[in-house]
């Protein structure tokens, strides 16, 4: 079976590479957009009471929604293809990043912020030079969770015409063609594991030396 899968792969190289590229492009864009929205939003919400509570509760609910249900809900509104898939995956990536950023900034020791203010730092400097570096490992943990979720979700995007490795899996299941199915499922698994490992090492590298000892 694995030999047949290998042969199938050899025979469909161009198609496979295109699907892999599309999978990576879809996941990376969704993650980048979600991070660009959720990190600044999480920082801004950290010192707010009421509106933050609403946003965080919404994010907590968003986190529980099944990925496939979110993708499916986007389809009747936006149709099928790359854009609807990108939109749905971005929605899925937002909650973990928002929640972690919000928590991370709030956990920064107020004494440290006071000391920075006492040194004459402006509010923007405090965020950039004090709060963000300390909060970065936890923020990145959220981005890592989101990244794995998006790579997994992108497999499901095949159902709404998003392309990617899921195409091989759905076609393989529909025709009960096991080699084709494996050509989708094995690389998708490796991609997900690789993403997790990559983000874990970035997370480690981003942890300030002073915080690493713990």
């Amino acid at each position, binding site marked *: *079976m694995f030999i047949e899968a290998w042969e199938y792969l050899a025979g469909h190289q161009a198609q496979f590479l295109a699907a892999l590229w599309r999978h990576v492009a879809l996941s990376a864009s969704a993650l980048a957009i979600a991070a660009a929205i959720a990190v600044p939003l999480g920082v801004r919400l950290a010192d707010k009471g009421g509106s933050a509570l609403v946003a965080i509760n919404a994010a907590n*609910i968003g986190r*529980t*929604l*099944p*990925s*496939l*249900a*979110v993708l*499916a*809900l986007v*389809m*009747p509104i936006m149709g099928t293809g790359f854009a609807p898939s990108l939109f749905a995956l971005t929605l899925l990536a937002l909650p973990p990043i928002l929640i972690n950023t919000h928590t991370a900034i709030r956990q920064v020791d107020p004494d440290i912020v006071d000391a920075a203010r006492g040194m004459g730092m402006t509010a923007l400097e405090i965020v950039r030079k004090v709060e963000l570096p300390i909060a970065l490992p936890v923020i990145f943990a959220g981005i890592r969770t989101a990244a*794995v979720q998006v*790579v*997994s979700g992108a*497999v*499901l995007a*095949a*159902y*709404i015409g998003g392309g990617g*490795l*899921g195409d091989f*899996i*759905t076609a*393989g*299941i529909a025709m009960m063609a*096991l080699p084709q*199915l*494996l050509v*989708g*499922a*094995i690389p*998708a*698994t490796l991609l*997900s*594991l690789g993403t*997790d490992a990559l983000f874990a090492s970035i997370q480690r590298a981003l942890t300030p030396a002073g915080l690493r000892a713990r």
Partner: protein
Amino acid sequence: MKWLINHWEDVLIALGEHVAIALTALVIASVVSLALGIWAAKNERVYRVSLAVSGFLYTIPTLAFLALLIPVVGLGKTNAIICMVAFSLMILIRNVATGIREVPEEVTDAARGMGMHPAEVLLRVELPLAMPVIVAGLRIAAVTVISVTVVGAYVNAGGLGTLIFSGMSNDFAPKIWTGAITACALAVVADLSLARLESRLKARAV
């Protein structure tokens, strides 16, 4: 809306099926995780190995996992349930082990000093005190399992995903809406009710 009024029975059947599959997986995963988690709490090596293995399983994309199981167990409920159990293990083992480890040593010492057996200490002291953390894990696992069940419809496991997929292939939006919204509602309800249980257990523990 018209479709829903005429087919509410189908929706209820799909919902019932969804809950049944999710519950089956959750029960199996809980039994396995309780055993492994207790062992892992007492043994550092078991802790590390079981978390590494279950963490690996947890990272595999849902649809890829279901697909990889097809050559082994074929299509159907068994396939989906194995996949869901595998996904829940990491969350549940971690929380069972952490919950037990967080019980203060003075408390277990005192229990032992009162003449309790190790089994009694576990059943009457450690597990009850670990319960809020275990339920917190159960909450995440429940949401995960409900989410996986939606995809499971594609390997003929049944449930609310059936409505979504048949709506997609017939390009019939009301079916998609009904399946997807009901699945979301189920996940939110499960999350909120286990959250309530969790905070009630926490309040009792103090």
